[in-house]
């Protein structure tokens, strides 16, 4: 038996089932392909199951998402697709540039559909998308994201800032197309 006590296995299943939707959703947004996301989720859960006795007992969801992210970065992206380099490093999103046209209105993005937000997020390069997913959607700390993605905290901080800036541009484009923004509010 993998776990000496059956109770331990039940405990794993209880914890895993509670966070499973988050794990699958993250996998889906990382891989952007349902079949691949299902493989990724299943593999991550199996790895977690086999390593559960080594789990420190603190934050199960963060631990599981770390396994998932590591698996995606190391296995899927590098082996199957090759590294996908971000294109945000050199553009204006890197630096703080004061907006010229005032504060964003309170309702600015309110009319956007979830599909449009999903599309905007999906358009980001892997590194930025993963950082934003783990931070904004899964609520992980920069330290946890750094461990999951195996980069320094400073890099996480930078990726989140650049990723959000790029995302903001995409969302603003959608809002402009929908007529929620007139002129060039974000320019």
């Amino acid at each position, binding site marked *: *038996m*993998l*776990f000496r006590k059956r109770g331990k*296995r039940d405990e*794993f*299943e209880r914890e*895993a*089932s509670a966070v*499973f*939707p*988050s794990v*699958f*959703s993250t996998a*889906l*947004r990382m891989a952007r392909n349902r079949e691949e996301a*299902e493989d990724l*989720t*299943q593999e991550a*859960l*199996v790895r977690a*199951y*086999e390593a559960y006795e080594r789990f420190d007992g603190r934050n199960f969801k963060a631990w599981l998402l770390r396994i998932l992210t590591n698996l995606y970065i190391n296995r899927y992206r590098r082996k199957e697709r090759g590294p996908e380099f971000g294109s945000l490093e050199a553009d204006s*999103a*890197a*630096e*703080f540039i*004061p*907006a010229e046209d*005032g*504060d*964003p209105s309170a309702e*600015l*993005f309110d009319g*956007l*559909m*979830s599909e449009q*937000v*999903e599309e905007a*997020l999906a358009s980001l390069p892997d590194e930025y998308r993963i950082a*934003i*997913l783990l*931070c*904004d*959607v899964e609520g992980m*700390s*920069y330290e946890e994201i750094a461990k999951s993605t195996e980069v320094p905290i400073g890099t996480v*901080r*930078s990726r*989140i*800032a*650049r990723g*959000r*800036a790029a*995302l*903001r541009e995409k*969302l603003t484009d959608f809002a402009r197309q929908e007529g929620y923004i007139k002129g060039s509010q*974000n320019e």
Partner: protein
Amino acid sequence: MDRSQINAYIDGEMSGEELAAIESMIENDPDVKREYLWVTKTKTCVQDNIKTIDNPELWSKCSARFREIDRAHRTETIVRKYRGALAGIVAASILGAAYIYRVDPSVVGNHDLARTLSAASVSFPSFTPRDETQAASWIRQQLNRETEMPPISQGFLRVVEVGIVDCPDCRVGRVVYSDGQNQYYLLAFPQREKQEFQPVRGAPGIGWSRVGQMNAIGWSQGEHWMVFAGPKSVQELIRMIQ
């Protein structure tokens, strides 16, 4: 001030002096405040619109895989833990099967009869004796046993040949008779504990077997299991030896 500081502040990743500085700037610098509002708006938009997606079918698959893994580990553990005992059981099973299905040398079976009745199997130089008495004497000498040969010829059978057949585990005395058309065989097996002979109704102590086109009757006599075989019915063969 760069954008990452505002993002870190919004994400609750600042403390101490850095935190105090950014809060002061947001309050006093309109550009920083505007950036703060934009980042907050973007983050909120993601949080509000990126929904969790469940997949119950996939969870069922995963759950099934946990059980598979558990079973595999359990088997592995048992094998590892009891490999000595399992090896013993396997060895005992093999030896047991070998014992059960062994060719029991103490059994006179059809294969013995077939081999013994085959002319080609006579490995010791054979000869034509004068009569049954000489044949019995010669066999007794060759087998080094007290062998009583029943008088079978009874006028219509003549002794054709006497010889020894070397079986894998014993030596068998063989006398070949002829009635002019068919051959008959009298065989003297070393005494066996068991014989694959069927009991013959009304003839206690006599067994019956079939070899090719011949019937064979067997009975225990002295230190031998005697067999008389020929192309006759069992009852006729019994009459011939009495």
